[in-house]
């Protein structure tokens, strides 16, 4: 018998899980929201998505090949996620050149500067989005009305987001009770019939994606559920304290980018904590900061900032929040 056999340490079998399976699983979970945005924004959504995804692929490929001079990485699926998330986070009629700049910042500065997938500190898509929000505040805050396929790309009728409506009104000294009749109902917001970024409007579709990712064990419940619970509890307290100044929990959960952020952005593997306890602290932080920014900040919406700020704390959380060890000696 002269068959050659391999000798390697255990374990000798593998689950078969791969980075791609997880990444494309996330992409699959984003499809319902993508379909909703096509329905509400028509051509605009298609153009924005294609531009964002294509430029993310292009920048990742180019930077990896010519600057980092490494093995190609575009097949791992992470550039696709970044591109889709970037598209989800901008108005569906954003000029194409701005989207391309956003993709360059997201992939170039947000991800490849740190050495590519796995090394970045901040969620790349959010780095791109916040860069655009600060650099092009006008274009980034004129949302087209969700009217369906008839909408043309450049001269669409615009609609303010529910959060912006309230912020403006409150600034003018109006009471919340007189503003609420002008914002979409909870059901409209749940189904996506409101002004907002391309992928954030349809709460129902995003929640469908959450269930898929939980069922496939791509993510655990810890981050999204703690974010949503924290926002609900904290905004509930503020609402009870002063119902005329602070909107209630249901409105907070369904408006703006909270569901998109909690389900798809905060749960990014690379930029979230490793242990369950750490994830809970991170989730509470994001929920808390979101409500603070929405209630007291200059911007009507705070999810992106809250996530980026908590991204910065992730190394610290990982260093100090350890999982519960088996048989740990208690001092």
């Amino acid at each position, binding site marked *: 018998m002269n068959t050659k056999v391999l*000798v390697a340490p*255990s374990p*000798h*079998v*593998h689950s078969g899980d791969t980075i791609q399976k*997880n990444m494309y699983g996330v992409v699959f979970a984003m499809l319902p929201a993508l379909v909703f945005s096509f329905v509400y924004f028509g051509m605009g959504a298609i153009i924005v998505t294609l531009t964002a995804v294509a430029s993310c692929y292009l920048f990742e490929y180019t930077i990896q090949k010519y600057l980092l001079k490494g093995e190609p990485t575009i097949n791992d699926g992470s550039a696709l996620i970044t591109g889709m998330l970037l598209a989800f986070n901008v108005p569906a009629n954003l000029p194409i050149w701005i989207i391309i700049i956003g993709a360059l910042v997201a992939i170039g500065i947000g991800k490849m500067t740190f050495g590519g997938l*796995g090394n970045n500190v901040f969620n790349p898509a959010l780095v791109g989005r916040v860069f655009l929000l600060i650099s092009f505040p006008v274009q980034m805050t004129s949302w087209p009305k969700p009217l369906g396929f008839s909408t043309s790309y450049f001269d669409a009728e615009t609609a303010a987001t529910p959060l912006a409506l309230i912020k403006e009104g409150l600034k003018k000294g109006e009471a919340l009770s007189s503003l609420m009749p002008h914002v979409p109902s909870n059901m409209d917001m749940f189904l996506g019939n409101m002004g907002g970024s391309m992928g954030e409007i349809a709460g129902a579709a995003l929640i469908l994606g959450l269930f898929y990712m939980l069922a496939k064990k791509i993510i655990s419940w810890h981050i999204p559920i703690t974010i949503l619970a924290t926002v609900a509890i904290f905004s509930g307290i503020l609402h009870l304290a002063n119902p005329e100044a602070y909107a209630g929990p249901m409105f907070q959960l369904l408006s703006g980018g909270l569901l998109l952020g909690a389900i798809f952005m905060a749960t990014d*593997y690379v930029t979230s904590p*490793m242990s369950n306890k750490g994830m809970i602290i991170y989730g509470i932080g994001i929920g808390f900061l979101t409500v603070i920014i929405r209630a007291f900040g200059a911007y009507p919406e705070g999810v992106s900032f809250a996530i980026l700020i908590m991204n910065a704390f992730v190394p610290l959380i990982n260093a100090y929040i350890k999982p519960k060890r088996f048989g*740990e000696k208690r001092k």
Partner: protein
Amino acid sequence: MLKTFSIGGIHPAENKLSADSAIQVLPIPQMVSIPIAQHIGAPATPVVKKNDQVKVGQLIAKSSGFVSANIHSSVSGTVFKIDAIVDGTGFRRTAIIIKVDGDEWMEEIDRSEDLLKEITASKEEIIKKIADAGIVGLGGATFPAHVKLSVPPGKTAEVLIINAVECEPYLTSDHRVMLEKGDEVLVGTQILMKALDVKRAIVGIENNKPDAIAHLTKLAANYQGIEICPLKTQYPQGGEKQLIAATIKREVPSGALPIEVGAVVQNVGTSLAVYEAVQKNKPLIERVATITGKSLQNPSNWKFRIGTPVHDLIDAAGGLPEDTGKVIGGGPMMGKALSNLEVPLTKGSSGLLLLPREEAIRKDSKNCIRCGKCVSVCPMGLEPFLLMVLAEKKNYERLEKDAVMDCIECGSCSFTCPANRPLLDYIRLGKGRVGQIMRSRK
């Protein structure tokens, strides 16, 4: 709700291909190589020399300390030589090589199949007989059984836990032993209870073996104090600490032994060996092993004589398949890859797995994407990703602080990692070095 342990855990494909194959007896080979180190602890000292005549069951190497075990001849014949051979660990180590001649047993061994239920030996006699018979933990760790039964002063054993979990995929030898030697196992359990002075024994069996659970539950009604405890199938439930957590909900403290929480764990195969040693005067010279693999003609279970070369077992099951890429002594999660087919089967050989080449080759490892899956599956609550980086960076101080020594090397982290990172390989390296550092400090 079935019981199980609560921290981490995975569920690999079970692949129990040989579960329905009754135990067969492997023919005695022409030559056996019996290593003098088949257990954890000091190697035994040979008490025979070249050209000595030996019988089946005769002592050929003597335990050389408290944590050590006697070795007996598994065949009758002539000592051919005492020499270094490559054993299942891949190292060259001393073995006693015996040329077989007939099958003549020591007279005191009772070879009948009669079930002897009545336990006449006293506690001390039991422990002495177990030590004399060279019995070690047959689950794979091969820790000398009498050591675990000698409860240190100041500690009390409250419960005996019989490890019948067999959580490794593919392996079915314990499963078959339970089905075919159920009464012997339970008498063995009672003997162990008597040795430990405990009134309660729990047999933990995963619910992927419903026939074994039903069979033993039926038999256990005739024995005082033995409970059969079905467990939810989850790897690594056969880990001593995990099994204790699953059955009696107690956590063995880090760095401590099970006796700290009043538990003593013995494998179900050990229980059978104890029965044979105490009731039948038979030393540990044979055991049951599974030979299995997806391409193998006949995955099956065999009772073999210690020292039989691995290729005899493979031949009995239909020969080495063409596509074999790895020959593993033990299961796929914690077994050791063998470097050649002359390696002898030993006391710790619970199975032999032939892995096809495409399954044996590891995929390329990628960047860590920090998904945290290794953390969530670790049954010891460790952070494998971090331990790997620390081991790579040779940061032994922090490795020790982050409890690398708690790692039970179950491999759940490497199994799960979507980036195929060799987590356990590095952790094992780090563990070895930290262990050295800790010992040198004493």
